[in-house]
């Protein structure tokens, strides 16, 4: 066999050791109980085998024991409680990206991964990231459900059409790691693979700057902002302004308040009448079918660039 023959995946993210420790714990529990059951069965099977064909079965045996039943109900209960809380703890941490994470956008389509960096650099079926730096992926799909999985990071998340899901990780070692689509997505499912390249920060910077033909993601969004005519309302006060909007609570006409996050902005572009900002009338046409998923991400990046933090507002 010419190829390497690994039995355990490499640990390449900050989350991996935690998951593996939990895995070792479960394996220890499993091995212990499997061994216990197997040894008991073998022992009983040999010790109490029927010696002759007409051997009479032993009589008046104990066939009920409440203490035993309680014992072997309680012990598994305690063990699974430990597993639950341990697993839940890691899972909750994995679900929430740190605030300073570098954001990268992922669009899945049958059968390729399309990845965009904030400076406008794009790649296909490859993801370049710096080591020791939290990365947050904002992902969506153009067609069916996919799943962005990096086994070396012990991380995966489904990628759904018409919705943003996120996933974050912090790579801890440089190298080249598998990227798989884990959710069956049709004919080319097994070809929807790629590589994650974890680089030293300086290499990453160099890579990021090389070969960028033109505009950053936000700049491309700005271009769209003009091309699509968003400016005619949102730049004139007929529609809500974008400056400092991102991440802020928005009061809606039905009295509810939502946070202006990616999902909200996306919905407002595609279904403008669904959530009307208080004080404005529902006059915006839908852009569904006119902007692609990539363009949506560009528009959102633009709005984001207009500032989410006080004192850091850009100019439209």
């Amino acid at each position, binding site marked *: 066999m010419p190829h390497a023959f690994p039995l355990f995946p490499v640990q390449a993210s900050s989350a991996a050791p935690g998951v593996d420790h939990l895995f070792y714990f479960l394996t220890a529990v499993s091995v212990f109980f499997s061994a216990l059951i197997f040894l008991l069965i073998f022992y009983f099977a040999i010790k109490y085998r029927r010696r002759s064909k007409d051997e009479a079965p032993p009589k008046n045996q104990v066939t009920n024991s409440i203490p035993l039943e309680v014992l072997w109900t309680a012990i598994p209960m305690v063990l699974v409680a430990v597993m639950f809380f341990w697993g839940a703890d890691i899972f909750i941490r994995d679900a929430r990206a*740190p605030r*300073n994470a570098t954001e990268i956008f992922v669009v899945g389509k049958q059968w390729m991964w399309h990845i965009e960096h904030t400076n406008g650099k794009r790649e296909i079926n490859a993801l370049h990231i710096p080591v020791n730096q939290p990365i947050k992926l904002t992902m969506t799909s153009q067609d069916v459900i996919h799943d962005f999985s990096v086994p070396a990071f012990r991380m995966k998340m489904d990628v759904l059409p018409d919705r943003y899901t996120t996933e974050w990780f912090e790579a801890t070692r440089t190298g080249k790691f598998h990227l798989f689509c884990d959710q069956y997505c049709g004919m080319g499912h097994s070809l929807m693979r790629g590589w994650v390249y974890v680089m030293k920060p300086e290499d990453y910077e160099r890579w990021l700057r090389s070969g960028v033909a033109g505009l950053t993601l936000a700049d491309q969004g700005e271009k769209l902002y003009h091309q699509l005519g968003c400016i005619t309302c949102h730049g004139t006060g007929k529609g809500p302004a974008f400056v400092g909007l991102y991440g802020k609570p928005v009061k809606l006409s039905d009295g509810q308040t939502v946070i202006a996050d990616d999902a909200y902005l996306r919905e407002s572009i595609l279904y403008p009448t669904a959530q009307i900002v208080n004080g404005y009338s529902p006059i915006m046409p839908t852009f569904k079918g006119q902007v692609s998923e990539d363009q949506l991400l560009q528009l959102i990046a633009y709005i984001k660039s207009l500032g989410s933090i006080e004192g850091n507002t850009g100019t439209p």
Partner: protein
Amino acid sequence: MVEHIAPKRMYFFVFGSLLVLTLLTWRIAYVDLGPWNTVVALAIAVCKASLVALFFMHLRWSGSMMRIVVCAAIFWLAIMMTLTLGDILTRNLVSPSHGWQSPATVSHTALPASP
């Protein structure tokens, strides 16, 4: 006789109640009670359904097994609705960019003041 025979009078009485409740639910739909419109309409529907089940379907006189069957079905339906709704209603509560912050990376950014 293996089955209870109810007096005919009862059927007409139940029928009358059903008609009254139908009228009621229809009229109430024209009164603005906000979200309570749905609640009231469903409460009336539950009353009507109980009347039909208990009297027309003789559940009142049937063995406990039949009642267990009906309750089980309703209970399982409730499970399906509750757990599914539980997902839908809590899905957007965790907004990754506005929730937990890594202690190691507490940044200069402040959470937007909640209204």
